[in-house]
């Protein structure tokens, strides 16, 4: 007597139906299980574009499957075109997944320690197959995600979707916007290069300006000897001490890979759930004022998720992924990696990431506490309470002239502040250093380093005599030198009669030393001189 009996039903099927029909039936059965309800015939009918039969098998995956149980089975015809939603919410969600996948890849090769973080970057770029590709995608995705989420928020405001009953959806969206920005920003420090340390330094010193309100400042003075102990504590927590150190890097890393994503996933769940519960809002003009008909979709107005919405969503994912992959390969986009972090050397023009430039611009307006802490707090607070305060019933554009004008003003103001945040606005630095920095910038390769090594012939050259330079590369470089000198003279009244010299020496077999020497006359007639030395290797491969 056997201990157990092995019974394979497939063998019975083959016996009764024959091999081929039995196998086909088995495959069909597997497909139904995987799709939670659709068999091969149903899928083929979807792909052929047939109208759905009654009863519609294409709604089964929504009822039985995990992935689609939160997706509506049908949408209103009016919300399926590009307007009014522009697919921005869907793309935001996709970018979250995209960043998680590329981020996990990078995590495998990264250690959050100042001793090895930068080395890890070099290893990812030089020794990990697809490492550079993944890093570029992660960085590009982060930038695009901030943009897409911000546009999603703007669109939601413009179409008035934050109004009743979607106030809480808007609130969770604002939280997600802030989380997205901080997710992107917290990743800045991790490569531990000059860009990361100095960009994050700007952010942290803004937070350090957090005031200690009365009477806490008196208590702090009495017991801690520090009247602004709240700012000090924030600074110590964010940097790991008075200066950025290993603990600080570890904290930003944990924030980036665990803390913020965890909160973000929770809020994405809440946000998405709220979107589905209230339904996709119709375009403002399609509804009566004060009415919300998103959940009541007439039979003849329905677009089913399967296959129309599904193919749309997949199409946009394919499109954006293709663009991202195209950008980091043929498009030539590469995530920057500057020299190793050096707390003692401040790069000439340190800027925050582009989505924080408006904040840097505001800081140039005056007080650090008012513009760096209070103003951003007010802006975020306004966004959060907006749907609970602005309770006008109409979502129509014509009825919301004040709100829409305010939004337009905010967009214009942010653009202007963003410009003010760049080094072109109200940053004073000396003209001589600017001239040399234009040729050998600290943040990117620049003209000298991209000039072919062999064309940098040993010798001493005068920028004014650029036409007599021996090689085209040198000619071009000296011409740029002269242009920069002339621009500096035109721009800066303290910089008169500027002369530029450049000396090229052979330093080692494959290394040249290039010395820039700028001399000028000050308005009082005294001479000024600025010298900067740069070394350039034959194999340094700065590209162009």
């Amino acid at each position, binding site marked *: 007597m056997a201990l157990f009996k092995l019974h394979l039903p497939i063998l019975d099927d083959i016996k009764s139906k024959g091999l081929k029909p039995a196998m086909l039936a088995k495959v069909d059965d597997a497909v139904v299980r995987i799709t939670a309800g659709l068999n091969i015939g149903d899928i083929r009918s979807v792909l052929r574009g047939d109208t759905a039969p009654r009863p519609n098998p294409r709604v089964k995956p929504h009822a039985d499957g995990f992935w689609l149980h939160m997706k509506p089975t049908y949408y209103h015809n009016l919300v399926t075109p590009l307007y009014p939603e522009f697919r921005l919410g869907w793309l935001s969600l996709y970018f979250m997944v995209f960043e998680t996948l590329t981020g996990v890849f990078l995590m495998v090769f990264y250690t959050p320690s100042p001793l090895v973080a930068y080395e890890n970057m070099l290893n990812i770029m030089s020794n990990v197959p697809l490492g550079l590709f993944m890093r570029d995608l992660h960085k590009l995705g982060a930038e695009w995600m901030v943009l897409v989420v911000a546009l999603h928020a703007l669109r939601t405001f413009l179409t008035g979707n934050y109004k009743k009953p979607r106030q809480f959806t808007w609130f969770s969206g604002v939280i997600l916007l802030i989380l997205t920005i901080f997710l992107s920003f917290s990743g800045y420090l991790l490569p531990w290069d000059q860009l990361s340390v100095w960009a994050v330094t700007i952010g942290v010193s803004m937070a350090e300006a957090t005031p200690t309100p009365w009477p806490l400042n008196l208590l702090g003075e009495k017991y801690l000897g520090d009247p602004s102990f709240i700012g000090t504590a924030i600074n110590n927590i964010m940097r790991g001490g008075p200066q950025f150190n290993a603990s600080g890097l570890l904290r930003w890393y944990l924030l980036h890979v665990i803390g913020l994503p965890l909160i973000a996933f929770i809020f994405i769940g809440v946000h998405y759930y709220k979107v589905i519960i209230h339904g996709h809002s119709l375009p403002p003009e399609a509804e009566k004022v004060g009415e919300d008909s998103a959940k009541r979709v007439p039979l003849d107005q329905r677009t089913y998720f399967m296959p129309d919405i599904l193919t749309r969503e997949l199409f946009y994912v394919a499109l954006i992924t293709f663009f991202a992959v195209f950008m980091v390969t043929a498009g030539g986009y590469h995530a920057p990696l500057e020299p190793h972090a050096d707390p003692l050397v401040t790069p000439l023009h340190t800027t925050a990431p582009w989505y924080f430039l408006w904040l840097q611009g505001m800081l140039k307006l005056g007080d650090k506490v008012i513009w760096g802490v209070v103003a951003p707090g007010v802006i975020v607070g306004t966004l959060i309470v907006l749907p609970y305060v602005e309770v006008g019933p109409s979502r129509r554009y014509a009825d919301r002239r004040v709100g829409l004008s305010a939004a337009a003003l905010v967009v214009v103001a942010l653009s202007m502040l963003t410009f003010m945040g760049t080094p072109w606005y109200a940053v004073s630095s000396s003209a001589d250093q600017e001239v040399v920095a234009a040729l050998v910038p600290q943040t990117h390769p620049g003209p000298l380093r991209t000039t072919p090594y062999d064309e940098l012939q040993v010798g001493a050259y005068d920028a004014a005599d650029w036409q007599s330079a021996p090689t085209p590369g040198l000619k071009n470089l000296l011409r740029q030198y002269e242009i920069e000198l002339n621009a500096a003279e035109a721009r800066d009244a303290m910089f008169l009669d500027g002369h530029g010299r450049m000396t090229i020496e052979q330093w080692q077999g494959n290394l040249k030393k290039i010395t820039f020497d700028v001399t000028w006359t000050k308005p009082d007639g005294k001479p000024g001189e600025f010298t900067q030395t740069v*070394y350039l290797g034959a194999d340094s491969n700065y590209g162009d």
Partner: protein
Amino acid sequence: MTVRVVIGTILIAATMAIVAFVMVNEPARMSSFESGFTGRSVEAGAALFDTNCAICHGVAGQGIENVAPALNAADLFDGSRLKSFGWSGTVKDYVRAAIAGGRPRASAAFAGYPNRMPTWSQQYGGPLRPDQIEYLVDFVMNWQTAALAQAPPPPVVDAVGTDLNTALPAGDAARGDLLFHGKGPGGQFPCSACHSLQAGQTLVGPSLAGIATSAAARKPDYPAEKYLHESVVLPNAYVVETFNPGLMPQTFGAQMTRQDMADIIAFLLTQK
């Protein structure tokens, strides 16, 4: 819908084709990145060498007699120097260890040198970060090919050296004046940057007002010329009271020609 499915499929295929293409090119790209990064590391190392190491090892790593050994020398890279003091690792490991940890005790070949190699890595109490040490190592190792291929480069033409018995040509006080103030060819080491000619004025080093008189009295059996000569090429041999030894660069012997030395001495002897 069909259009979307078709375009979407094409896009996915195109994306995968790009990724495959990238993948195929990865080995070549990675090795070019690697050599590119070593090149940049050498550049960073050159700048660090200039500010930290050149003062003792010479601007081109040629070494300075009685101060610090040559670094662009064949004996460092062919292993014979390492063998002499029993280093069993590679040259690169030795260079890294010597820079990072310093050399508290000189090897036999340089036993007479008064200065010790200081510790440079922050890990051992020095001023440089570990990555900066690596840049310096890459820079020093970059001499390897040239050093092994040829004899060490000749020192500065007719350099005066540190031997006080060397014969000096006749001095020209007018040219010495120019050199002293950092003017004219050979004037890249202006004495006047540190030494004032006004009595009692201390810039960095002592004032040289009346040096012609005091030089003759400084050391019993030294005439003024010899004392001045020694003070320039071996500054620590006699240090004026209240000044620290090592304040004055130790490298002028390797950087100055006999004629420069003679001219400067001739100029200083006019400062009575």
